[in-house]
C-alpha cells in the first residue's frame, strides 16, 4: 500500500492554547477515497489544513507522498483543496478564477476546467461573489481538479449545500476521481455522504484519532455481542471493547477483533457503518486506539 498522507504524532495547538489535534499517527492510503468524520471541532479542518500546508504542525510530522506539504511549488502542485464554504475572490468572475488556475498551475488542464464550467451552465462573466454556495463549491472543485493533483482534499464540501446540489457535487467529485487516479480526503459530519463515497475512514474526536481503516475491514472486524450480563474486562485479550452498555440482566458490547467470536453465550450481529462511527465518536479513547507514545512526550510545542 502506498501512503498518500503519513502523519506521526502530529499535533497542533492554536494560539488560544487548545490542542486542536493531538498525537495523530495515521497513514492514508493512495488511490482511495478517505472519509474524515467527527463532530464540529473534532480537528478535521486542522488535519486537512496541515495536509495541504496551510497550517504547520506544533509537534510531530506530516508528509504527502514522502515530502512535507507546501515545501516547494512542485509539492503544492500535487495537492488540491476545496476549503470549507469554498472561499473565492468575490470580485473575480468565474472566467477569472479559471485564468487564476491556469496562470498559477503548470499542470493546469484547461479543457477539463472549461468543460466542467460549461456543463454546470455557469455564466463565465459572473463575479464569484454573486454565486450560490453550491456554485461556489463547484468552482472550487473545478479549480482543485483541473490543476491535476495527486491528492484532492475537501473540507466539508457539501455541508452548506441543499440535497440536490449535494448530489450533483458528489457526482462531479466521483467523475473526477474516476477520470484520474486520485486520492481523495474528504471531511464531513454527515455520515450518509461518507458512506456513499468513501472506502477508507478516519474517526476524529477531541483532536484525537479514534479509529482508522478501510471501511470493509472496519465492518469485518467489529461485532456487536449481546448476551447475559458480564464484566467486559473478562473478555479474551484479542477482543477490544469499543462500547459497552448494560441492563440488569443483559450486556451489549461493540468489540473489535480479528478472530471469530467463539463464546456461545454471545449473540453476534454485524454492525453498520453509522453505528460504528457513532460508537467511536461517543466512546472515550480505548487503549487499542491510543497512540503509543505518552502525551507529554510530544508537548514540546514551538
Amino acid at each position, binding site marked *: 500500500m502506498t501512503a498518500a498522507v503519513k502523519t506521526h504524532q502530529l499535533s497542533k495547538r492554536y494560539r488560544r492554547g487548545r490542542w486542536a489535534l493531538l498525537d495523530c499517527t495515521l497513514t492514508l492510503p493512495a488511490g482511495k477515497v478517505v472519509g474524515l468524520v467527527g463532530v464540529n471541532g473534532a480537528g478535521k479542518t486542522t488535519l486537512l489544513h496541515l495536509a495541504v500546508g496551510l497550517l504547520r504542525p506544533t509537534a510531530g510530522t506530516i508528509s504527502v507522498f514522502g515530502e512535507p506539504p507546501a515545501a516547494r*511549488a512542485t509539492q503544492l502542485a500535487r495537492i488540491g483543496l476545496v476549503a470549507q464554504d469554498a*472561499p473565492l475572490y468575490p470580485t473575480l468572475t468565474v472566467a477569472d478564477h479559471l485564468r487564476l488556475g491556469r496562470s498559477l498551475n503548470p499542470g493546469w488542464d484547461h479543457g477539463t476546467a472549461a468543460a466542467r464550467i460549461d456543463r454546470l451552465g455557469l455564466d463565465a462573466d459572473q463575479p464569484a461573489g454573486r454565486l450560490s454556495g453550491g456554485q461556489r463549491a463547484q468552482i472550487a472543485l473545478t479549480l482543485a481538479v483541473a490543476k491535476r493533483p495527486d491528492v484532492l482534499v475537501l473540507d466539508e464540501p457539501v455541508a452548506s449545500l441543499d440535497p440536490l446540489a449535494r448530489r450533483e457535487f458528489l457526482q462531479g467529485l466521483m467523475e473526477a476521481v474516476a477520470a484520474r487516479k486520485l486520492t481523495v480526503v474528504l471531511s464531513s459530519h454527515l455520515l450518509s455522504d461518507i458512506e456513499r463515497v468513501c472506502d477508507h475512514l478516519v474517526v476524529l474526536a477531541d483532536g484525537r484519532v479514534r479509529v482508522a481503516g478501510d471501511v470493509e475491514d472496519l465492518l469485518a472486524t467489529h461485532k456487536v455481542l449481546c448476551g447475559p450480563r458480564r464484566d467486559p474486562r473478562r473478555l479474551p485479550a484479542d477482543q477490544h471493547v469499543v462500547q459497552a452498555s448494560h441492563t440488569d440482566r443483559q450486556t451489549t458490547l461493540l468489540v473489535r477483533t480479528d478472530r471469530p467470536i467463539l463464546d456461545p453465550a454471545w449473540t453476534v450481529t454485524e454492525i453498520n457503518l453509522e453505528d460504528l462511527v457513532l460508537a467511536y465518536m461517543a466512546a472515550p479513547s480505548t487503549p487499542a486506539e491510543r497512540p503509543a507514545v505518552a502525551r507529554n512526550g510530544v508537548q514540546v510545542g514551538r
Partner: protein
Amino acid sequence: MTWLAWRQFRARAAVALVALAVALVLLAVTGPRLAHDFAASGLPDCAAGRETDTGSLTCGDLVGGFLDRYPLVRLLGTALIVLPAMIGAFWGAPLVAGELEAGTHQVAWVQSVTRTRWLAVKLSLVGAVAVAVTAILSLAFTWWASSSDRLGSRISPAHFAQRGVTPVAYAAFALVLGIAIGSVIRRTLPAMATTLAVFFAVRQAVESWGRPRILDPVEISHPTFTFYADEPAGRVAADSGWVLSTQTLDSAGQVLSSGGTIRDDAAATLCGLPTASPTKAQLDACGESLGLHDVVTMFPADRFWTLQAAEAAIFVVLTAAVGAFCFWWVRQRIG
C-alpha cells in the same frame, strides 16, 4: 502569479494613476505662471538677502501673500505627506490581512506557487507602482516649487518631507509596514489604523531624533548684536537653513541663553543699562564688552540633497528589514 497580482491590484492602481494625472496637469498648468509671478514679485530679492524695493511691503508680507495665491503649494505638499501613509494603509495593510479575513488565502496558497513567491510577486508589483507614483509626484512637485523654494525653506522640517526622494522611501517603507502589520493582526481595518499610527510615529521619530544626527551640522558663530544689521547675507544663510539650536555665549564661553539669541533687556541687565529701551549703540557696546556671540547649530540650505539621501537611506534600510520580516512571518508564522 503576475496576472493574479495585477488583477487584484488594477482597480486601486487605476485610482492612483488618475489622481496622479490630475495632480500633474495642475502642476503643468500652474508651473510656468508660478515661476513668472515669483520673478515679478520682488521675492528673488528677498531670496538673495536684499530688502525689497517695492516700498511698503516687507519680505515677510510678500512670502505670505505669494503662498496665499498658490494654495497648491500647501495642498500638494500635504498630499505628499499623506500619500505614503495612504499607500501603507490602503495597499499594504489589506495585502495579506484581506486574504486571511476573506479566507481566500485558502485559494491562493494551495495553487502551485509557494507563499514566498506569492508575496514576492505581489510586493514587487504593488511596490513598483507605489514607488513610481510617489516618485513622479514628488519630483514634479519639487520642480514646480523650485522657484519659491529659493526662499530657502525646503530644508526645514515643514517642507523637507514633501520634496525630493524622501517621499519615495517613505512610500516603500509604509507599504512593507502595512503588509507586516496586516500579516500579524490579520484583520484589515485594525491593521490600516495601526499602520497609519506606526508610520507617522516612525516618521516623527526619524525627523526629530534621527535626521539631526545622521550628518554633522554646521556651527556658525557671530557677534550677537552687530550681526543682523551688518551682514544680511549671513543672516539669509542662517534663516534659509534648518536651525537646530541658537545659543548666546559670553567671552568666557558661558551659555547665557540657549533657546535663541539673548533678549535685549537681559543683555542690558548684564551691562547695567536701563532695561526699558536700550539704544542700538548701547547694546552694540555692551555686546562687545562682554564678548557676546551667538552660536547657531544648523544645516545650511545647500545640504538639502545630502540630507535627503541620508534620510532616504534610513528608510530604505527600514524597508529592507520590515520586508524581510514580512517574508519570514508569512512563510513561518501564518498557520
